[in-house]
């Protein structure tokens, strides 16, 4: 079970969190069909560091950004949305 550092609550067990997909997607105000489809469906699948979102669902309830290495599962940092990305 991972230990995930919530920006508000500190390191907490993974069971309290929900994964919420890739981070830093921009919801386009205007988009071609192709660009919109990409926003909806195309995601990175890196082997290595990955910017993702988590929610401390069973804790403070906040969504936040998290940088996790998909190979080692190691989390290098988390940050509140809008704060400087980790």
């Amino acid at each position, binding site marked *: 079970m991972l230990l995930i550092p919530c920006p*508000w609550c500190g390191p907490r067990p993974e069971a*309290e969190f929900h994964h919420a997909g890739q981070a830093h997607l921009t919801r386009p105000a205007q988009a071609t069909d192709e660009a919109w489809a990409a926003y909806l469906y195309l995601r990175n699948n890196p082997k290595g560091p990955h910017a993702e979102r988590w929610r401390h669902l069973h*804790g*403070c309830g*906040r969504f936040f950004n998290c940088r996790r290495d998909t190979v*080692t599962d190691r989390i290098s940092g988390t940050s509140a949305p*809008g704060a400087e990305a980790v």
Partner: protein
Amino acid sequence: MTQSYRLPSGAPPPEVRFVFDGREMKGRAGDTLAAALLANGVGVVGRSFKYHRPRGVMAAGVEEPNALVTVVRGGGRETPNLRATVVEIYEGLVAWSQNAWPSVGFDVGAMAGWLAPVLGAGFYYKTFKWPVSFWKRVYEPLIRAAAGLGRAPVSADPDRYARRYAHCDVLVIGGGPAGLAAAKAADGRVILCDEQAELGGSLLSRAETTIDGVPARNWVARGLDARVTALTRTTAFGWYPDGMVGLVERVTDHLPSPDPGLPRERLLLVRAKRVVIAAGAIERPLVFPGNDRPGIMLAGAAEIFLARYGVTPGRRAVVATSHDRAWHTAFSLAKAGVAVAAILDTRAEVGPDLRALARDAGIPVWTGTRIVGTGGRNRVRFVETLGAPPVIPCDTVLMSGGWTPSVHLFSQSRGRLRYDADSGVYLPDRSAAAETSVGACAGEFDLAACLAAGHRAGGGEARAFAVEHEPAFGAASPPEPAAPHPLAFVDFQNDVTTKDLAIATGEGFRSIEHIKRYTTTGMATDQGKTSNLNALVSAAAAIGRAVPDVGLTTFRPPYSPVTFGAFAGAARGELFDPVRRTPIDDRDAVFEDVGTWKRAWYFPREGETMHAAVARECRAVRTDVGLFDASTLGKIEVVGPDAAAFLNLLYTGDFESLAVGRCKYAVLLGEDGFVRDDGVIARLSKTRFHVTTTTGGAAFVLNHMEDYLQTEFPALRVWLTSTTEHWAVIGVQGPRAAEVLGPYLENIDLTALPHMSVAEGLFASIPARLFRVSFTGELGFELNVPARFGRAAWGLLRESGATRYGTEAMHVLRAEKGYFVVGQETDGTVTPDDLGLSWTIARRKPDFVGKRSLARPDMRRPDRWQLVGLLSDQVLEEGARVTATDGTSLGHVTSAYRSETQGHPIALALVAGGRSRIGGAVEIPMPNGKIAAQVVPPVSYDPKGERLTAPIATPPPRVSVRLTETPVAVPFTAPCAGVSLSLAPETSRFNIRTSVPLAPPLRAAVHGAHDIFWLGPDEYLAMGDGPPDIVADSIVDVSHRTAAIRLEGAKAAWCINAFCPLDLDDLPPGACTRTVFEKTEIVLWRLSDTIFHIEAARSLVPYVWALLEDARREFLPPPPAC
């Protein structure tokens, strides 16, 4: 039988009687079953997996591949595949050998041994292929009957299992010398675990060795103080991310009559800041033809049986080794009076000291020699050698091919291994976790060095340990490849020989992972403990590569078998999943599971069938009035100046223009434009909305809303509060609905309440919210009263003679109206237009979630599947395919019922271009033929909706009553000094959202007469009498949403950690936090070291209560004797 292989001793431990294969025997307290069987001269203890060869005890610990037994305790307690070397005997133990019929001595299946030449690697894959129809009926049952390990028990496991989370600064895995030194040196909270019954590891079989002048056995317990939680009979079976290690403790298996309060096993999930792995090493067998005969044993095992249990493995031993250490075993045996016929060393050169000692002991020695065969039927009787006398008679062969460090946990921690060419084994190289490997598992075999390394790893200053009278270990020697031979066993448990490995490599397999799967070496419960390296060396030699180039199989957890019971813990039977019951919970109903909820399905009268009950319930709603428990519907209170703007972005409709006091049907889309949920949204004030969701969608919708609010539209000033469990909801539906409700309403004028409106007032003197909404097509209301009043409100309304109806009638009634149900008519690919809901979309809104997707060309194709009705003369099957009359697939049936009102079956279906096919014919192909159907509009009842909007006549005069409260029901709880459980008194609760700090993060604070709990950066819960005197962005009454359990006693934290993964030492008195508790969520508030307040959703309090009861069972006083 007599213990004829037991050495005499001055003060023997008490005798213990046990039964093996139906024969009563005697052993000694403290014996393992293997030791006791050896003492009784039992050579054959089981039959091998594939060839049914007789097998005896080969090892002395968990690595034993052969001696697997089933222990039967009665009452359904039957555990197969236990290692006799781990099972501890107790008075009355009953154990059986496995995989043999009719007996281990004479076994019919042993003919498989004669067939060994054809049963080699890949035999099953190649032979049992054709015909395909034989697979399930002939081959599989035959193979399963012939091969395999013990039988699975047939009845439910009667024992209790427990699980808990534990936290420590240092976890030491392995209680041998290195681990003990580490634990003694470590600071803070230390957990030390060892899989054996006592700590000490190799020190337990060192009669003469001293450490710092103290006899090794006495040194074990020295300096192990209260900081150290020492867990024996506890195996570390797996390493999980971020330093979480899984331990399983066998609590009662060794006891003749366990305390019923104790769990049989306990799974510990230990989160350690630092881990010291001192897992030791496993001795390797030598690979030679016939190396599996009973009487052939690992040399180190023989030394343990001798030193710890006073048991000699035989009368006349041959010691075969490639290693110095086994020579000392020979000397010990000789000293104990066992004849040692020969020491056979594969090495050409052996040190003069050893030779001198052998000479002194009178043991003949041959070097540069090896065994090429063995003989004997149920026990080895001789060995054949090259380089020594061709035949040496013996009844015991003690073999040692060197030692393999146990690196499985290190490897699971993602540490990097390196191949050490000198010793021919893999060793820890670079750690990837807060981990240190010490002692034999790190390739260190010198006792003084192990102690020093352990001491350092535990955190101690570097120091030396004075070790005396310990035989020198000698240099390690790499394992050597063995020639292919059908009886040279590599993996004893899976019957894999060097010939099988040669077949696999000969057929082109190169990766050790593939070779493993083709030959089954290193599989099953054994996981290659004794065989891994020998297989690797032989495979590497066969394909002409260096050992490190062949690769290494993955060390997967669990390292040794863990029972399903231990993994499940309390999560079985009633506690497998939470069971949520509504505040009304009318037990006259038959219930159906909807998610974790129990919902009333139908209310049968005595002798009534389901069909008759549902028809009667439908009739009552259409002609009279029905009552429906709708409490499970999700409810979210949306509060703030931007509430309408926010709902406009989340739902398809326009909520800015919704008048206060009115409701709107609302459809929620995903960003992909597909329908996710629906409900009714009521505007209570300019800045406050009451949103309802589907039962199953409640959690999803709140999360979806929070996601957009927190990350996409963070500038909006709006706050969301779940009120699902605060309200009990009663649907009052039917022509007589107003008449039934009217007498109890205050400040609500029903005649002024149009369809799709909401009013706040009193119902039977209790504050209530009344919605005029309908999911049945009749005049209808949904009455919301605070949850504790739900049951009384239900009872009061029943006095009118209203008929209770369940979810089945609800489904029929809504289907008659063509109302869709999320998850039944939708599957994540259905747009609002597909459902005929284009009218719900406010097209002039510049943006809402899903809007852009609805503009994609594919979303507007005329041949999209659209919701229609189907008319047929029999009830269709939900999920059935719908085709055109030419057989072209058009879609599927989504709902189908008998309609009492219509007098014929009705169905809803998603059909390609469905709306343009209305009036046309389709077919539903079924196994017994096609069913003809006509496409019709989805609404079959009151298509104009006149019944919904019917004006309301003046209701009967008001009756003055007051509802009573029904508290959460929990069972009686026994008093207990260790930990007591009670329900906290009911109180008011308010969810408060404000950016002004009311309490520090993760802490409770006092505000006037209220306790304020920090729940999130702008979220607080206020508890006390009435509303708190606080100005905030959003205040929502949630008094009835939760109830609280108070847990008090020295063991309170212990009980919470059975289900909550938090380190409670990080939660000082005054701290509070939302967290998880088994499969649910709680708010945990620590009032003092020993008092906790647990806030849980109303429907989940019984679940949390029952779990806590389970956890504290071991602290309850025993029941009084009768």
